[in-house]
């Protein structure tokens, strides 16, 4: 009898806790969300018109210029938007590019004032500005999707980023000074490719692109019948990166001719592919591009997924409530 009562008491306690958790936890979360939403709405309503316009321009620009919107409204786990705002590269600047620089810089400044008023539940929107004010950028990612990728691609992700919470900070250090070894850079680019939403095969192509760029920067004649000196330079630069990188990627010790062949192969197959099958001539936003194998199944899949939401993005772009839509989605 006593045992029965104890069991009943225990049962009651557990049942009560479960009931409280089931009923009140969502309510508490919902209340939190409501408070955030209300606070955001108040901030937006009390925002000076000029600030509002500057923020609107910034998000229009982010949406028009890259893959920001595909992350915010589509399946893309992460979007990176870097902008060179170096006014000393003056000979290349036109009024149009100066206008873009003005939008990005002013938008970034205004966002610093308000970003704490728009905390996000599902997304992280991080930003950076280099100390010389010549490069700025925004990193947007969907927390759950990035967490899933982080878990799926172990130990690479752990080796590159350490903890999953470090990813935003990592990506907001564009100089890559935090990478201790040259070979880290290659793992970093592979991990980045995966986070940007590409499968393992294309993430390797993404990494190869950077390797190719590195090699070409050090020996620009690599792909056109190298002379001995240049060959040596490129091979040395590649070999400097070998130890850890080779271990992780089954990259074999190669002879000069193999590496030249590999570089030639990369150059031949890697083409800039539009991530849409549509013509963007009169579209308000550009089509993101990617360097992958042409005709690749994954690319076709991505193109179709991107195309599916372009109409929706177009509607959002021209909506009278553009800023409200963007900010409320960020807070979702």
């Amino acid at each position, binding site marked *: 009898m006593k045992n029965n009562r104890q069991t009943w008491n225990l049962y009651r306690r557990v049942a009560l806790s479960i009931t409280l958790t089931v009923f009140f936890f969502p309510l508490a979360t919902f209340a939190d969300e409501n408070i955030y939403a209300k606070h955001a709405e108040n901030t937006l309503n009390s925002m000076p018109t000029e600030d509002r*316009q*500057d923020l609107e*321009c910034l998000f*229009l*620009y982010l949406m*028009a210029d890259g893959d920001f919107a595909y992350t915010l409204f589509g399946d893309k786990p992460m979007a990176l938007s870097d902008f060179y*705002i*170096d*006014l*000393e590269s*003056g*000979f290349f*600047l*036109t*009024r*149009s590019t*100066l*206008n*873009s*620089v*003005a*939008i990005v*810089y*002013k938008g970034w400044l205004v966002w610093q004032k308000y970003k704490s008023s728009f905390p996000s539940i599902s997304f992280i929107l991080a930003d950076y500005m280099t100390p*010389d*004010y*010549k490069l700025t950028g925004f990193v947007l990612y969907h927390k759950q999707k990035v967490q899933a990728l982080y878990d799926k691609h172990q130990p690479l992700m752990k080796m590159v980023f350490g903890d999953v919470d470090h990813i935003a900070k990592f990506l907001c250090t564009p100089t890559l000074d935090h990478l201790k070894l040259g070979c880290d850079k290659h793992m970093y680019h592979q991990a980045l490719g995966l986070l940007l939403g590409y499968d393992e095969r294309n993430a390797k192509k993404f990494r190869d692109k950077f390797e190719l760029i590195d090699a070409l920067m050090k020996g620009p004649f690599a792909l056109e019948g190298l002379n001995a000196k240049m060959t040596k330079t490129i091979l040395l630069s590649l070999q400097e990166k070998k130890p850890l990188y080779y271990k992780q990627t089954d990259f074999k010790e190669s002879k000069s001719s193999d590496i030249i062949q590999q570089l030639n192969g990369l150059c031949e197959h890697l083409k800039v592919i539009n991530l849409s099958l*549509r*013509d*963007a*001539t*009169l*579209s*308000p936003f550009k089509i993101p591009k990617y360097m992958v194998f042409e005709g690749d199944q994954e690319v076709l899949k991505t193109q179709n997924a991107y195309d599916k939401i*372009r*109409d929706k993005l*177009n509607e959002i772009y*021209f909506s009278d409530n553009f800023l409200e839509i963007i900010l409320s989605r960020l807070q979702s």
Partner: protein
Amino acid sequence: MIALPITFFLLLGAYLFQPHIAPVYPDKDGRISTIMSDQERQEISLCLANMLWNQLSQYSPFYDFDVVMKNLDDFAKEKKRPLKQDCQQQLLSFLDKISTYQAQLNLKDAEAYLAEVATRKNVVEVVPQKLYYEMLQSGDGSIIFPESPFKIHLIESYLYEGEETVIQDTRLSNEPITLLLSDTVLGFAKGASGMTVGERRRIYIHPDLAYGKYGRHGFQQLMICDVERL
């Protein structure tokens, strides 16, 4: 009597210790002349002047030409050293004002142009003060629906400092483009809606219904599309 020698020595001192006036990189030992003629150096100087002027004109009328020249002169004579970093942030903070000013000018031009278009005969008003089109050629075929792709020839122009400037002409390249109305700027989608095969329209689009403050080829610019459905 003593004033004269003092003046003489003062003038001599001023002459001897005057700042370096000669060109910064003179061809002291004649090495440069072995690879480049004076005329070639003149040509380089002219190119640099052109490039500098093109750059300066982007900031017009927001700078004082005399102050720019005075500072360049001071740099050349080593009276001053150019700043390394401070200018970047300083200029960035002014850029917004310049950009806003240009945007206002463009918007004013666009609205004045549209007001004039609205008075033309045979102009169809789609959105008052924002969107008009002229029928250049009537068509005879199926109508465009937003979800169906259609092929066009396009002459795309913008109003730049009050003048129409052609950005692209697919007839010149003989490469028509295939579009979906739902994937175009709102002004084009509305202006080209209902076009039939063979029809040609000239659509005038207010910046609000085109690229707005952020523009591909400029900002707050009127967009003009001469479009023929194929």
